[in-house]
Each structure stands twice: as C-alpha cells, then as structure tokens.
C-alpha cells in the first residue's frame, strides 16, 4: 500500500514536472501543424533542439544575457521553419514530412559532431547557462521542498511553474487563433487545399505561418527542457521525442486546444507510474524475478504505453477531448 502511494506520488510529480511541460509544448506546436493545418511535421524535436541550444550557446559560449539567448533560440526556430517550408509547402504533404524528419536527425548529428564541439560542446553538451533564470525564483532554489509526498528542488519547482504558465499562455494564444477566421482558413486547408485556393486564400502563406508558429512553440519546449535539466546535450533531442509528442497529441485529442496538455500529463503519469509500480512489484516479489527483472522495466513500460494507445484508438479514436463525429467522418 505504501509502495502504491509512493508510485502515485512519483508519477504525479513526473506528470507535473518540466518534462511534461516539454511534451505539452512540443504537442501544442504539433497541434497547430498537424491538428489544425494538416502539416505532417515529423521533426518537431529539431525546433526544440534549436530553442534549447539557442539559449545554451548564447549564454555559455557567447556570454550573452539569458533573455537574448531566448530570442536567439526563437529566431533560429523561425529560420528553420522558413528553410523547411519554402521548398516543401508548395508540394504534397509528404515532402514536408520527409524534409522535417531528415532535418531533425541531421541537426542532432551536426550538433554532436566533433567539428561542431567548439560551439555546441559536442557529445558532452553545454551547461551552466540557466543561472540568470533560476535566480529569478521568488523562493530559495537551493533548498528542497516537500509537496504531497514528493520532493522538489526549488529550481525544479520554479522551472515547472514558469513552464505551466507558458503552456497556459500558449493555449490561450492557440484558442484565440483557432476561433478566428484565420483559424478557420487553417482548418479548411487541412480538409482540402485546392478548395481553399479556389476561394481566394493564399494557402502557401497560411501554411508557412502555421509552420513558423508551431515551430516556435516547439522551440519554447526545448528551452524549458534544457533549463529544467540545466544542461543541453544533442542526444537529449532524439527524434523519438517527436513521436512521443504525437502520442500525446492523439491521446489528448488532435485539433483541441487543451488536448496536448492533458495528453502530456496523462502520458508522463502512465509512463512513470508503470515504471515505479513495476519496480515495486518486482522488489516485493509479487512479480517473480524470472518473469521480469528490474532492468527490463524501462522497456516494458513503453510496451504498456503502446498497448494503452492501441486500446485508446480502438475504443476512443478521437482521443480524450476529441469529437467522435469528426473522426467518424473519415470512416464513411
């Protein structure tokens, strides 16, 4: 019983920590791309990488102010979106998917390469760049705080708080946008570009705006992540995270403002709960060692998540917030 409560508490911390903010922001960006505009961006993590390293490089290598670093990261994300969008957005949707997936992986390999290590720190990455930000916390960040049976460091708490405020603001932004005529054009592009063209809308421009907006939100996610861990390492930005963000989006419900947020909280809760819970069951001998050892738990929890997603798609294909009628239209 004590183990169960402990597992719930650990999972709850993970679901409210900066990792959840990271995935929520990645997924909010993807929601703008995929949920509303129908753009297939399979390299969202590339935007996050540029956001994170924008701060890390600016502060620890170039000695700039933290907030200048934030602007550098956002600017880099805009440039990446333009570079990806200019050649591919006039073409069919799959070309953007190919370009983004290759670019995200290419960027990671570039940032970890030996030749780039003078700037990016190579495989060791960069650290000591979040001091300016953490010192803004209204409480003592060196101390540890106990909240509902979980231990948080002051810094963690501060990053998570600012992160969730950021998530709330961006949800408000997305909500304002999608209920406006601008959002209506995006949704129409998702349904049929040619029809929108025939009605006098510059589809290319709207897709570009959507790509930039979603990319910038993804970059903010990367910033929260590197500030939360206190270090930026290219290998933190594996493209698997893009697909976890898609899982978050589908779990919460695509094309719903709060879908990605709820999805991120639930996904991280489930992953952490499965992890801690299984370990407790193994150490108590309830699951025999021969069946599952503690070292396998890290893999098994993702199997469980995959199983859960499959069940979700069978029984609730619209996600938690989605509208079933909308999803069923495609099946007709």
């Amino acid at each position, binding site marked *: 019983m004590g183990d169960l409560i402990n597992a719930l508490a650990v999972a709850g911390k993970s679901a409210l920590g900066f990792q959840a903010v990271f995935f929520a922001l990645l997924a909010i960006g993807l929601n703008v791309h995929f949920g509303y505009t129908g753009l297939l961006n399979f390299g969202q993590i590339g935007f996050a990488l540029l956001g994170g390293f924008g701060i890390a490089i600016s502060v620890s290598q170039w000695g700039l102010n933290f907030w200048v670093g934030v602007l550098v990261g956002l600017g880099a994300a805009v440039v990446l979106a333009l570079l990806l969008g200019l050649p591919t957005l006039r073409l069919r949707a799959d070309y953007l998917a190919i370009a983004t997936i290759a670019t995200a992986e290419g960027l990671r390999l570039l940032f970890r390469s030996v030749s780039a290590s003078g700037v990016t720190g190579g495989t060791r990455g960069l650290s000591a760049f979040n001091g300016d930000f953490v010192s803004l916390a209204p409480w003592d960040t060196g101390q540890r705080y106990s909240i509902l049976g979980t231990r948080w460091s002051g810094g963690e708490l501060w990053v998570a708080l600012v992160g969730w405020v950021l998530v709330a603001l961006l949800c408000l932004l997305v909500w304002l*946008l999608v209920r406006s005529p601008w959002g209506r054009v995006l*949704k129409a592009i998702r349904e049929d570009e040619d029809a929108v063209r025939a*009605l006098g809308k510059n589809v290319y421009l709207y897709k570009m705006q959507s790509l930039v907006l979603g990319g910038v939100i993804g970059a903010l996610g990367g910033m929260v992540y590197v500030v939360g861990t206190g270090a930026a390492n290219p290998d933190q930005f594996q493209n698997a995270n893009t697909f976890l963000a898609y899982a978050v989006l589908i779990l919460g419900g695509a094309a719903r403002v709060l879908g990605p947020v709820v999805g991120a909280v639930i996904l991280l809760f489930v992953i952490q709960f499965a992890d801690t819970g299984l370990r407790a069951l193994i150490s108590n001998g309830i699951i025999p060692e021969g069946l599952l050892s503690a070292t396998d738990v890290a893999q098994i929890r993702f199997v469980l998540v995959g199983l859960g997603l499959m069940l979700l798609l069978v029984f609730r294909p619209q996600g938690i917030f989605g509208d079933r009628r909308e999803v069923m239209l495609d099946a007709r």
Partner: protein
Amino acid sequence: MPAENTPTGAHAASLGKGSPAGGRAPQRLAQAALRDVPWEVGVAKPDPAIVVENVTRTFGGLTAVSVDRLEVQRGGITGLIGPNGAGKTTLFNLLTGFDQPNTGTWSFDGRPLGKLAPHQVARLGVVRTFQLTKALSRLTVLENMLLGAQGQRGESFLRALVPGTWRSQEKANTEKALDLLRRFKLDAKKDEFAGTLSGGQRKLLEMARALMSDPQVVMLDEPMAGVNPALTQSLLGHVKDLREEGMTVIFVEHDMDVVRDISDWVVVMAAGRVIAEGPPESISQNQAVVDAYLGAHHDAPLTVEEEDQVLAEAERRIAHEENGEVIDSDTTTRGEGR
C-alpha cells in the same frame, strides 16, 4: 468547319423561339446579344468577359488543350461540352490558375491572367467549383460558407488575435451566408459537418460557397454529376438565377438536355480543340460535333468501294513517305496502282 454552319441572324432567331426561356427575353440579354454572332469557332463576341488566345497545354506527348481563340460572353451561360478526355477540365484548370499552360495568353476584363496563382484569380472575381465536390468535411456548413467571403480582416494572423477588429465583419458575413443557405435550402443543416451532407447537398453547398465571394464569373465543373433529377431541377434554377444577377457562368456538363435548357452559347471541345461554337440549337446539327461524339462513320458500315478508297489513300501516303521527294502525288498513285 463545314460552311453550312454559318447561319444568318434570322435562322438563329427562329430557333431561339423554341427555347423554354423565350418568353422571358428581357433577362436573357446575353442570348439577344449573341443572336447575330456567326456560328464559327473563335468568333468575336459583342462583350467578352474572358478571352483565350493560343493556349496550349501538353502532358508529355499528349496535347490536352490547344485553343486558338475563345471568347466568353459576359452575363451569359456558356456551356462547355465534349467527350471524355476532350480537355474541358484542363481548360478550367488553366483559366483559374490551377495549371499553367505551355503557351498562350488569356484575359479577364482585359486583365491578363497568365501568371496568376489560383487565389489571385479568385480574388479578381473568377471562382470555380470542382468536378469531385470539395466540401470541407470537418467544418460545419456555416463555416464552409464563411470561408468564401473575401477581404476578411480576421484572416490576417495579427488581427485574428484581436476579435474587435473582425467581429462586426464576421456578423455581416454570417447573415449573408444564412441568406444564401436559405436560398439553397441548406439553412437547417448550418451547424452540421459538411461531411454529413449527401452528394447533391454538397454540390449545392459548393455553389453557395462560391457565391459568398460575390463573383463576376462562376465556373462550374459538372455541377449536375451524380445529382438526382429533382435536385438537378433546383440546381438548374440556381444557375439561371446567377445569370439574372448578372454573373457570367461557364459550366461543363454531359447531360445535353440540361445544356440545351440553360445555355446561351455552347462550346464543343474534342481532343483538346474547340471544334464548334454556337447557340445550343446549332450544336446537335453540327457534323463535327456528331463525328466527335460518335465517330465519323457512326451511321453506315463501310462499303467495299469506300474500303478500297481508304486503302488506296493509305498506300499513297506510305509511298509518299518512302519516296522522300515527291514531284506529283498523282504520278505516284498511278505508279503504285500498276
């Protein structure tokens, strides 16, 4: 082009009397204006809205469209007919910027449309519908309609964030959309997803959506395809209404009864070319049209003499090519015959 198809004005007028709308002559200004126009391909119209010149479009070795000259009368309904693969839809795509031609120019109200993108053409007031209906399934019927409105302030990214800048305009557009929906009898469905509508209702919605932009030229690609007869009548009525509001309508259709009923002028295409033009009454008598639809020898089997003639002609041509320089075709034929 057979010479007997060049009619006198009186001939055309007497045929015109038989048409159902003959009694409502005042509304059919375009028909009256076209009365004295000769039935020739590429003929100049009194008041053309769209002028097409020397437009060609090839896909690899296939010439999909090759139109030397075509003028479309303003304020009239021009029917575009032709067998499958005649290039009707390709011509539509070229005119609306969805495809770019290999050569040629065309203009709307004297403004060249050559290098414009589809949305720029639409903003000039030339809107189109599609052969395969493009209802935006996961938007409601009303949202579909609102999308058609032009010059919306709320469609710019920054102003979208300040609802005060676009709310009044949105309200006006909504009222206009509801009026149009009532006219097309879709007002009961306004909050349903467009994807739940039947095929015919989608056609209606697409036409209504196009009208939201207050177009000057409406191009309808097979508006009646797959629509039941009762709805066809209502669609026909709507198309006629467009003309009465002063719009220029160009439509592609296969149903000849429909074409005869509503068109002021009919353009026939086959194999990428315009093979005949004229009022609807003239078309069914036109030999080139009959040949295009049914084949040149559709009404009689080949006789033995005709077959020999065809064979001799073919042999003559082969010999022609083999000889290279030919002095006189007659001598070649005689030489072969021996």
